[in-house]
Structures are given as structure tokens and as C-alpha cells.
């Protein structure tokens, strides 16, 4: 089954990918492709836009219309693409640094507009491609090459950021719960508006090694143990929520979509 997906949706001549052994990015990418397959989208109608970083290299491996943009700007490019041709299914692949540090402004405004773009964040808690610097999602106290004495920054809750900014579908999953990613990407693409899907992935090479998190299997086990389904999480007593990360559908609402609103203006003339 996996190989069929690869033959159908990957540019096989571009493989192998650049990711390290133990990296979780392949699981996220396979899940995205599986979701697209489940929805039966025409490849010509799908545009995958990515920024800069390890995860953003994913666009080059996929046999869709693919645009590998500048650092942090994937959502701004994607806004131009979607607004200009609303018939396209526009999917943004980005990382934690790409989307919430250098691209943070574009994230909150794309969400605010509720433009019909599905954003999938590969959150590995670190800048991997540049060699392990702390990112806006590196937990406070953890180490990176630029936080040799521990990170003093407060880390973002990306889902709450997206929700507060106006996203109409917000969810979180992990590379341990791959089937959940598939379901969430399907829901995100089906949602007529801005969808934000955070996938917690693992970087054993930099984040893991720097913070003594063990090997890839250990890090997968951590994701299994640290995450709780949102419906369960909400019923937990406050003292039991510490150290737990809620996963599942975090938020969903309905609000007019940007390109459709503009279409109404065009119809005035």
C-alpha cells in the first residue's frame, strides 16, 4: 500500500529524501498523501507550498504543483496562489520555526482572513536544517546549540495561536498517531477556510541528542505517553494536565471564507 502511494504521488526520481535516520517527517508526509488519496483529489488541482527548513523540502518529493518558497513566507505565497486561483486545493507544509518565528506574522493573518488553505506544521521543537538551534516551540529549559544553558523563552502553543488568530479548523496529532494525521488532513482540506494542523514529530539527531531524549523509538514512546486525546484532557483535573499535550480536534467553527467574500465584491460590478 505504501509503495502504491509512492508510485502515485511521489516524484520517485527525487528519492531518497534528505531526512536523517529516525526523523518523523516521512510519517507526516505519507499521511498527507494518504489523506489526499482518500479524498480522491486530482493531482493537477493540488498545490503544495512550503517554506524553508527540513520539513519544507517535502514539496520537492511530491508530484503535485509544488512551490518551495523563501523562509517563513509559504503562507504569503500560498495566499497569492489561492486568491488568484481559488479552484486549487492549496496545502502548506511548514516547520515550527518557519511558521511561528520568521513566518509568524503570515500565520496569524492567513488565519485571520480564513483563506481556504490547509497548513500542516511539522513541529520537531528545533531548527534542524541549521543544526539544532532553539525555536519558538522548544520547551522552556530545553537545550539547543543557541541555548547552551537552557532555553529561557516561553514556548508557543501553536494550536492556541492559530485558534486565537481566526483559524476555523485546528487540530494536533503526532507521528506516533499517524492515522490521526490522515484524518485531520482530510478534515482540514474539506474545511472551507483556514485549517491548521500541528503534527508533533521527532528530531533524534538534534533535539533528541541535545536533550538526552534517547533514540527515535524512545522519542516515539514519549509522544505516545505525553499525549492525551482532547476530550479526555478536558476532563482531567488541573493537576493531572501538567506535562500532558492534548491531541485531536482542538477547535472548529464556521466563518465566511476570504476568496468567496472577495467574489461577492467582484459581483457588485
Amino acid at each position, binding site marked *: 500500500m505504501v509503495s502504491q502511494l509512492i508510485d502515485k504521488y511521489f516524484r520517485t526520481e*527525487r528519492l531518497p529524501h534528505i531526512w536523517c535516520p529516525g526523523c518523523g517527517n516521512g510519517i507526516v508526509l505519507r499521511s498527507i498523501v494518504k489523506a489526499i488519496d482518500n479524498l480522491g483529489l486530482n493531482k493537477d*488541482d493540488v498545490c503544495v507550498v512550503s517554506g524553508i527548513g527540513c520539513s519544507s523540502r517535502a514539496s520537492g518529493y511530491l508530484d503535485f504543483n509544488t512551490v*518551495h518558497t*523563501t523562509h517563513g513566507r509559504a503562507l*504569503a505565497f500560498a*495566499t*497569492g496562489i489561492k*486568491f488568484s486561483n481559488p479552484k486549487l486545493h492549496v496545502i502548506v507544509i511548514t516547520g515550527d520555526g518557519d511558521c511561528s518565528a520568521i513566518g509568524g506574522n503570515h500565520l*496569524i493573518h492567513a488565519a485571520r482572513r480564513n483563506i481556504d488553505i490547509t497548513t500542516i506544521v511539522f513541529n520537531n521543537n528545533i531548527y534542524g536544517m541549521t543544526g539544532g538551534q532553539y525555536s519558538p516551540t522548544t520547551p522552556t529549559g530545553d537545550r539547543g546549540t543557541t541555548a547552551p544553558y537552557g532555553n529561557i523563552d516561553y514556548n508557543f502553543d501553536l494550536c492556541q495561536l492559530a485558534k486565537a488568530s481566526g483559524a476555523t479548523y485546528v487540530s494536533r496529532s503526532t507521528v506516533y498517531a499517524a492515522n490521526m494525521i490522515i484524518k485531520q488532513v482530510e478534515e482540514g482540506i474539506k474545511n472551507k477556510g483556514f485549517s491548521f494542523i500541528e503534527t508533533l514529530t521527532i528530531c533524534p539527531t538534534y533535539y533528541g541528542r541535545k536533550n538526552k531524549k534517547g533514540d527515535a523509538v524512545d522519542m516515539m514512546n514519549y509522544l505516545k505517553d505525553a499525549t492525551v486525546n482532547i476530550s479526555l484532557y478536558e476532563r482531567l483535573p488541573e493537576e493531572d494536565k501538567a506535562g500532558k499535550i492534548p491531541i485531536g480536534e482542538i477547535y472548529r467553527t464556521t466563518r465566511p471564507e476570504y476568496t468567496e467574500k472577495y467574489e461577492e465584491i*467582484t459581483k457588485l460590478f
Partner: protein
Amino acid sequence: MADKNIVLMQGNEACVEGAIVAGMRFYAGYPITPSTEIAEVSAAKLPKVGGKFIQMEDEIASISAVIGASLTGQKAMTATSGPGFSLKQEGIGYAIIAEVPCVIVNVQRGGPSTGLPTSPAQGDIMQARWGTHGEHSIIALYPSTVKEVFDMTIRAFNLSEKYRTPVILLMDEVVGHMREKIELPDPEDIEIYNRKKPSCDPGEYLAYKVKDQDIVPEMASIGEGYRYHVTGLVHDEFGFPSNDGNVAEKLITRLVEKIENNIDDIVECEEYKLDDAEEAIIAYGSTARSVKTAIDTLREKGRKIGLLRPITIWPSPKKQIESLAKRVKRIVVVEMNLGQYYLEVDRIAGKFTNVIKLNRVNGELISPRDIISFIEEG
């Protein structure tokens, strides 16, 4: 015969009028003085012609959205000033290497930084040329009247589509805000160039392969069935990233040569009273208008002097400057900076004639009287 279409129009407004005639159907921008009217007029006019306007969250987002729109096949533009032009440089570099046509308007103001927001200046000459990092060439046009803003905006789109490259339209604050009576041409008389699109089977399409004698590859639009990869990394003919030094050398050389080898097509200059000139002034934009008045007065006093006005400022009109340098005893470069284009003129003309400069950076125009005094004194 139809009535002439004569209107009173502001420079910034003429820019939008020209853009729409050229086929602009997408504008993304961010408010900044003194270019804001370009966004305002675009916001009002684009939905009426089936186009799209979006006010983005910042300048970088604006150029990024413009590039995205162009990739879907739309002609797209953004406009900015001073500090915003600095921020556009990231996207300009991307559009150069990924060969995405688009037009960037910079209505200049005094700098550096926030500088003199409402005053004219010509301080972005070198930034237009070298603002983005890495080896590259660039096309930049410089109108000096409202009518020319209309014409040069159309030309900017045409060159952008023809050479698949970003084109910069530099304007002076006074040209952007000045109102002049202009005659708009019949749209049917205006030549419009559209990017070459592939006709081959999608399976055979190589996004960055050039055909035979052509130096510009055919460009498919996203959503038309030609699925390909676009990147800001050095890439091969398929569009995929490559670390191969030969691939990099070939790509960067072609990107530069597609402009530098077509200078005769790209460069446009105006010659004013140069036929018998013994000395010459080189100036552009609004400054050239002061120069023309000064030349008329100086000629009345018997001086054989004329003007060479680059309308295409980059690539510079090397042949025209060199030819002029060989027949005049001196060239004066007049500009509202401390001698940016002087450097380029002196590089080309300095070995043939004496090149001197007249400059100002106080936010005021250089008047005909200033120019006359300067010429007569030295």
C-alpha cells in the same frame, strides 16, 4: 474618429491605469507614503475588471503573494517606497532565480530608514540594481512624466513577461503625486506581451529548459496540468534543487545573459538637443525636467548643451553613454543623491571625457537655476 481620451491624472494613478491596460489582474501591497495611492486605486479598480486586490500584513508578504499569483498565470504588481523597498528585496531575488514575472514599483522617498517620507529623493538607484543578494541582473525603468508613468508601467509588464523576470519601476515622489493632463491611447494601439506558455505534452515539460535559440523558458501556470517544482534554490532544468557547480554556473549565467545580451531591446533613452552638443547632462526622472528647462536657457545664452535621459536605468545604456562621451568635452550627472548613477556613468564615460556631478539630498528638487549656475560656474 473617436474623441481623444484626455484626462487629468496623478502619477500614482497613471501607474495603475497602465498596469490594468497591460493586463494586471492581481495586486498585493502594504500602505506606505508616497506610494499608497497605487494601492488605493488598485483596490477600487481591480474588482471592476475581474482582478484581485489584497492588502497584506507586510511588504514581504505582498511581494510573496504577487509571486504566488504570477505562478498561477496572472500579471501581478506591488508598489512601495523607501523602507518597503528594502523589505521587497527578498522576494525580488526569488522572482529572479525562479523566473517569475512581476512588477515592483518604488515611489522613492528620502532615506536611509524612515528618512524623509514625503520628500523627493533618488537614493534607491543602486538598491534597485544590487538590493537583493547574489549575482544577478535587473531591469529598472524610470519615467519622468505622468504620461510616461502610464507607458512605462505597461512596458514594465511587457519586459517582465518577455524575459520572465521582476521589473522595477522607479518613480520620484513628485512624479507619483504630480497631476498632469495626459492623453490616454486607444487600448487597441498598445502592444501587450504575454509570457510564452508550453504547448508540449505535460509529461514532456521541463520547466527550466530553454529551447534552441531562446534564452527564456516557457512558463506553465499552476493548475493547467503541467505539474512542476518551483524553488529559490539553484535548480536544474526540471526545477529541482541542485548542488552541482556546473548547474549553478549555467543557471546564473543564463539569468544574467537573458538581460545583458538583450540590452538593445530593453534599453530606452531620450536624447534632448544633443546633435551639436559640446557638453552634456545625464539625468533621469523629475530631475531631467529641470535639466531640460536649464538647457533651453543655456542654449539661449549660446551654450551647446544637451541631455541624455536614461528611461531604462538598469541595465544602463552603455552604448549611448559611451558614444556621447566620445563627442562631448564633459558630462554632468545631475541627481537627487550624492552621486549613485554618476558612478555608473563615470565607469563607462570616464576614460573618454570628464565626468562631474551635481547633487542634492535635502528633500528639495534640483531647480533649473541650480543647474544653470553649476554649468556656468564650471
